[in-house]
């Protein structure tokens, strides 16, 4: 009895006070088992599914969070990969806002199962609508990731649960609002870490700066640069929104320079500038890509320039539509809705040099040999051969590209996530000599 009382009093003493739990950010483990690691990544423990965690902050790598949990009645701290935990909302599930104007609620995880009349508007008046993502693993189908949701306020006659496309949901489950945790003292030196008389705010800022420095160091060591580092983080965790990237509908905008947005990475040219030439009131970019597609496209741009077109000119890659930033439906351009497909102009003869002008395969400036080589190169990067379109019959014979109406002046290529494109992305190391625009 005395021993039990001692244990109970010890537990009460070491457990955080209840009000502390109530105010802190909490998360629950969703994986069947989850490794707890040191800040360097060494495994120190493993915790079970559904374990409740207190989240203390973000690791500078952007992929892990610092957590506190209880083991044997004693608090422990460590780092876990945040893609395996779910932030707990006020309802015990993740709340999410809707991106776009409205989002269809479907009876099953498929595009063919729709209850359009039950679509949820993003806003009612000035109030944003939210849905609750239920504790169920995401489902993949129709090239869409689906999550089961519950509607707090379903429309009359509509079910209160169903499936929605994950790409159009903005979960509150991310931890971007938390501070980046400082790392080990050994990574800072002298006065940087030991200054006295600082206010708590300054100290926190120093910690965050230190974290950022380490994060930058990690990125540099991986040779990715901030764009590809952010894109890779999004691939690992689709709900992640790296602060330095423009993200919408689960897609990322390709980096573009200049007031017209023509200057793409690795010497490439983006030929559908803003504002939209058909509607100047719209500044809607069409350079948004699925993170894997963005990563593979960068690999294409870099390796083509490096190996086949070091001096630019007619072989310079000119790319156009990928997907819209906000408009889910790309009118008259249905294969460009999800950020997997890119329009690219054929190659020009070296003597023609580069120009931002249309190029059809029957024009004098067109270079069929280089275009065929480029299409083979796209295939080596994991292009989906069923959706590889270009209409020059000779090039089609050589490359296996298919005919599709209107594809006499551009190659249509898609890089959906698959084993090949994932490998291409994993192997991508940004070469600052070839792609200086994205190496810093």
């Amino acid at each position, binding site marked *: 009895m005395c021993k039990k009382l001692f244990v109970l009093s010890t537990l009460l003493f070491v457990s955080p006070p209840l009000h502390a739990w109530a105010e802190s950010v909490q998360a629950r483990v969703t994986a069947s088992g989850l490794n707890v690691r040191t800040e360097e990544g060494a495994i120190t423990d493993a915790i079970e599914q559904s374990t409740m965690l207190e989240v203390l902050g973000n690791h500078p790598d952007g992929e892990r969070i610092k957590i506190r949990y209880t083991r044997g009645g004693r608090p422990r701290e460590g780092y876990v990969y945040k893609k395996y935990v779910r932030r707990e909302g006020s309802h015990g599930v993740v709340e999410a806002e809707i991106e776009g104007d409205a989002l269809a609620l479907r009876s099953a995880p498929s595009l063919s199962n729709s209850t359009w009349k039950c679509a949820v508007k993003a806003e009612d008046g000035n109030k944003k609508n939210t849905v609750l993502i239920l504790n169920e693993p995401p489902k993949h189908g129709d090239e869409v990731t689906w999550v089961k949701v519950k509607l707090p306020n379903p429309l009359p006659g509509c079910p209160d649960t169903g499936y929605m496309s994950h790409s159009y949901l903005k979960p509150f489950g991310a931890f971007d609002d938390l501070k980046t945790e400082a790392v080990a003292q050994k990574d800072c030196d002298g006065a940087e870490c030991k200054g006295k008389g600082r206010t708590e705010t300054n100290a926190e800022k120093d910690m965050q700066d230190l974290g950022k420095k380490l994060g930058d160091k990690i990125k540099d060591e991986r040779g990715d640069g901030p764009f590809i580092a952010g894109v890779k983080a999004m691939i690992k965790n689709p709900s992640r929104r790296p602060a330095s990237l423009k993200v919408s509908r689960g897609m990322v905008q390709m980096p573009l320079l200049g007031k017209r947005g023509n200057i793409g990475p690795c010497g490439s040219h983006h030929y559908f500038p803003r504002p939209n030439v058909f509607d100047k009131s719209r500044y809607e970019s069409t350079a948004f890509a699925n993170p894997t597609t963005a990563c593979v496209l960068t690999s294409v741009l870099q390796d083509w320039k490096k190996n086949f077109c070091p001096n630019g000119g007619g072989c310079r890659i000119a790319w156009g539509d990928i997907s819209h930033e906000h408009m889910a439906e790309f009118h008259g351009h249905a294969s460009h809705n999800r950020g997997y497909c890119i329009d690219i102009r054929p190659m020009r003869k070296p003597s023609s040099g580069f120009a931002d002008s*249309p190029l059809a395969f029957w024009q004098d400036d067109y270079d069929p040999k280089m275009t065929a080589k480029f299409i083979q190169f796209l295939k080596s990067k994991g292009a989906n051969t069923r959706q590889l379109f270009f209409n020059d019959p000779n090039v089609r014979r050589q490359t296996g590209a298919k005919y599709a109406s209107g594809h006499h002046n551009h190659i249509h290529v898609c890089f959906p996530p698959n084993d090949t494109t994932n490998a291409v992305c994993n192997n991508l190391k940004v070469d600052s000599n070839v792609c200086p625009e994205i190496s810093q």
Partner: protein
Amino acid sequence: MKSLFFFLAMMTVSFEAHAENCGDKIQGFNIWEELEEGKIVEKHTTFSIEEISRNSYFEGLVVPKKAGKGAKVEVEVQPKNTKLKARKTSWDLSPWELDNKYLVAETYEGAEAFGEELVEGTFTLRLVKDGKVLCETKDLKIYGGH
């Protein structure tokens, strides 16, 4: 003699009805930017118009300077779907500050000429002056998507 007169009259009418093809007398242009030695520089390209689609758009229209004062450029769009209205738009020409060999169609807007979304059909380019058609290129294709 009467039949000869009638034949000559027909030839004249026929000739006037089929104005010369414009060829490069009306060109499209795009303005674009690129990096040169780390600096962003603005460039432009002029080109023949053979069609229009999202991948072959033009930002504006130019004609050689010799077209002269008072000339106008016209774009006449005929949608394939006959339920949709045809549209005809014309623009005055003025000196082009980017290249003094050309006159530019003032206030040209792709949306005004073709609509905010390209609809499948055909279009005609026309250069007119004092009510006379100087040249005309017909049946240029509009690709309305993929």
